[in-house]
C-alpha cells in the first residue's frame, strides 16, 4: 500500500492478509484515475445529466420561522435514487469499470447505498449483489423491491441484529472469496483505507457546491454546517469543503435512539471508545472486553456501532463537534418539517433537522445554517406510521 490511510491516529487498514492485494489495487487505480481527464469528464457528465448535480441550496423559510434563524438545505434528497449515496456509487462504480471489474458488491443499511449501487450496476451493466441485514430487509422493504427491479440480487444477512454491521461483515466475507473479479463498492466513509478517502472524494461535491451557493445567496459563509452521522459519508462530504474555514462550526448529529443513558442508541462518537472494526481504528460502541455492541436507532442508515475514521479525528482535534438526538425528537421533527416545507425528509437527515429545532432560542437569529438534507423520506413512511399511528398524532 502506498499510503497508510491515517487521519491522525485513526483509520488504517486492519484486514486479513487476503484482502490486502485488492485494497492495493483499488488504491492505485484511485490514484491513477481521480485526476484522469477522461474519467473526470465521464463522471461529471453522469453527475449532471444522470444524477442531477448540482443540487440546489434552498432557503427553508417556514422551517426557519420555527427555528428562529435561517436554515438552508442542501437538497441531496433530489438526486436520482433519493439520497447522496449516488455520488459515491457513481464514482466507485466508474472506477471499478476502469479497473476492468465486472461485478459489484455492496453493503446497505437503510437500503439507500444498496439502491444507489443497484442503479449504478444497471447503468454500467455490471452484475450486482447487495448484502443487507435481515432486520433492515424487513424495515426498508420498498428499497429491497427497488433494488431487485433494477436487477440486483439482495442477500438478507442473518447473524447479529441483522443490521448494517452484519451486512458489512458478510460483504467482506464474500469479497474475500471473490476478490479477483469483484469490486466492493463501500458505502460509507469508513472501512479500511483507501475507502474513507475515496468516499470523501466522491462525496465532496456536496460541500463544494454548498459553499459556493451559500456565498452566492448570502454573501458570506455559513456559521454552522450540520449533517447526520452514521458511518458519516454525507457529513464528510459537506464538511470537507469547510475544514479550512475555522469560523464555520461543523456539527455532526448521531442517532440517540432511546437515549444515551440506555444502550439503545448508535451515538458512536458521543459514547464510544476507540477500537478496531471493519478495517479501521476509530470510535466504536463496544463492551468492556471489546465485543461490538448491538445498536438501535429508528433510522436504519445510522444504525452502526462504528464511524468513519476522519470523523474520529475531527472530534479528537475539536474541528467538528458531535451531538445526538433521540428517536422521539426525530419523529416530532419529521412531522413538523414535512408540513412546514412540503418535503418528506429521510429519518437519517431528520436527525440534523431535529438538532436545529433544539437550537431554537439558543442560536442568535442572524446565524446562517446549512443542513445537509442527505435523503428523502419516502422509504421511511412505514416506520413513521408504525411509531406514530395517524390517530395518535397531535400535529
Amino acid at each position, binding site marked *: 500500500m502506498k499510503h497508510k490511510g491515517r487521519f491522525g491516529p485513526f483509520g488504517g487498514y486492519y*484486514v*486479513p*492478509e487476503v484482502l490486502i492485494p485488492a485494497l492495493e489495487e483499488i488504491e492505485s487505480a484511485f490514484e491513477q484515475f481521480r485526476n484522469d481527464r477522461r474519467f473526470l469528464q465521464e463522471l461529471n457528465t453522469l453527475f449532471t445529466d444522470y444524477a442531477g448535480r448540482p443540487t440546489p441550496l434552498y432557503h427553508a423559510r417556514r422551517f426557519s420561522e420555527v427555528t428562529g434563524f435561517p436554515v438552508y438545505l442542501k437538497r441531496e434528497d433530489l438526486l436520482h435514487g433519493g439520497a447522496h449515496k449516488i455520488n459515491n456509487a457513481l464514482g466507485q462504480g466508474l472506477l471499478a469499470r476502469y479497473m476492468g471489474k465486472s461485478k459489484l458488491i455492496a453493503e446497505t443499511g437503510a437500503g439507500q447505498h444498496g439502491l444507489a449501487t443497484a442503479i449504478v450496476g444497471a447503468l454500467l451493466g455490471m452484475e450486482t449483489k447487495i448484502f443487507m441485514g435481515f432486520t433492515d430487509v424487513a424495515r426498508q422493504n420498498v428499497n429491497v423491491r427497488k433494488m431487485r427491479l433494477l436487477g440486483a440480487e439482495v442477500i438478507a444477512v442473518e447473524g447479529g441484529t441483522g443490521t448494517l454491521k452484519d451486512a458489512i461483515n458478510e460483504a467482506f466475507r464474500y469479497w*474475500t472469496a471473490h476478490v479477483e473479479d469483484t469490486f466492493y463498492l463501500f458505502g460509507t466513509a469508513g472501512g479500511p483505507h483507501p475507502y474513507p478517502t475515496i468516499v470523501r472524494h466522491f462525496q465532496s461535491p456536496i460541500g463544494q457546491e454548498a459553499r459556493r451557493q451559500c456565498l452566492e445567496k448570502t454573501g458570506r459563509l455559513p456559521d454552522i454546517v450540520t449533517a447526520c452521522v452514521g458511518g458519516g459519508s454525507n457529513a464528510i462530504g459537506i464538511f470537507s469543503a469547510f475544514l479550512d474555514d475555522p469560523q464555520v462550526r461543523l456539527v455532526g448529529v448521531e442517532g440517540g435512539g432511546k437515549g444515551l443513558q440506555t444502550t439503545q442508541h448508535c451515538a458512536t462518537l458521543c459514547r464510544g471508545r476507540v477500537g478496531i472494526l471493519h478495517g479501521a481504528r476509530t470510535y466504536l460502541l463496544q463492551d468492556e472486553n471489546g*465485543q461490538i455492541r448491538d445498536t438501535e436507532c429508528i433510522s436504519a442508515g445510522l444504525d452502526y456501532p462504528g464511524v468513519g475514521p476522519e470523523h474520529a479525528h475531527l472530534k479528537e482535534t475539536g474541528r467538528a463537534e458531535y451531538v445526538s438526538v433521540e428517536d422521539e425528537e426525530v419523529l416530532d421533527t419529521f412531522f413538523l418539517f414535512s408540513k412546514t416545507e412540503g418535503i418528506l425528509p429521510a429519518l437519517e437527515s431528520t436527525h440534523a433537522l431535529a438538532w436545529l429545532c433544539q437550537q431554537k432560542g439558543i442560536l442568535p437569529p442572524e446565524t446562517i445554517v446549512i443542513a445537509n438534507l442527505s435523503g428523502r423520506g419516502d422509504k421511511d413512511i412505514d416506520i413513521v406510521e408504525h411509531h406514530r399511528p395517524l390517530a395518535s398524532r397531535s400535529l
Partner: protein
Amino acid sequence: MNAYQACFSKLDRAALIPFFVIGDPSYDVSAELVKAAIDAGADILELGIPFSDPVADGPTIQKADLRALKAGMTPARAIEFIREITAYKPIPIGLLVYYNLLVQYGVNRFFEDFKQAGGTSVLVADLSIDDADEIIPSARRVGLETVFMATPNTPDGRLRFISEKTTGFIYAVSLLGTTGERAALSQTVRPFLSRLKRLTDKPICVGFGISSPEHAFEVAQAGADGVIIGSRIVKFIEENPENPARIKENITRFIRDVLDKLPPQSPKSRPSS
C-alpha cells in the same frame, strides 16, 4: 529452539493442529473437548477467542463464536482456560484473535498473561504484516512467537516480508475465502505451497477448508509442516449441542483417522530464527 521447532523436529509426519473456539459451547465442555483432542494425539493447538464480528470466518466458526460468547467467554477467562489446558499437558498453543480484543485488554498486558498461562504464539486475524510492528515488540519482550497468514494471492515480495516477521510458523491459507468446510481441497494449495517453500525456510502450516483425513493427507504430501483443521472439528460441536460425550467421541475418532492417514515425512530441523 522454540516450542514449535521442538515439536516439528521430533515428528516424522506433519503436525496435526486442531482448532477450537475457546468456551464453545461452554467453558467446561470446551476444556473437556480440547483435552480429548490432546489425548487423541494433537501435536499443537490453535485456539480462538470468540469475537462478535469475525470477518475472516465462515458460518461454522461464526456460530461457535456466538455460542461461546453467550456462555460468557471473555479474553480474561480465555487466559484461565489456556492455563488449565497447559497444566493438563504441556502442548504448544497458538492463539487466533481479532485485534480489537487485544487492543481493549492492552496488547502488552495480554501478551504477558497469555505467555504466563503457557501460550506459544499469537496470530491476529485482522492485522496485516504492514502493521505487525504494533504487536511484535510486545511479543518479543515476553518471548511469544509471531504467526502471520499468507494467502495464495500474496505476491512473492510480501511473502518474504511475512517470512521475516514470522518466528512461529507461516499460516498458509489454502484458498481465497473464509474458514469453513469444503468438499474438495482447493486447486491453489499445491502451487501455493511450492511457491512458499521456495521463498521461506520457516515451518508452514496449512489451514482453511481442510475437512477430511484425505485433505490432510494431500496437504502433508505437498510438503506442509502442519495441518490446521478448524471448521470440521467445530462442526462436531454444532451437530451435537446437547451431547458432550458424543462430540468427544467424534473428535477423538476424527483426529485418530487423520493421524492414521498422514504420510511419513523426515523430521525437520529448521534453522532457528
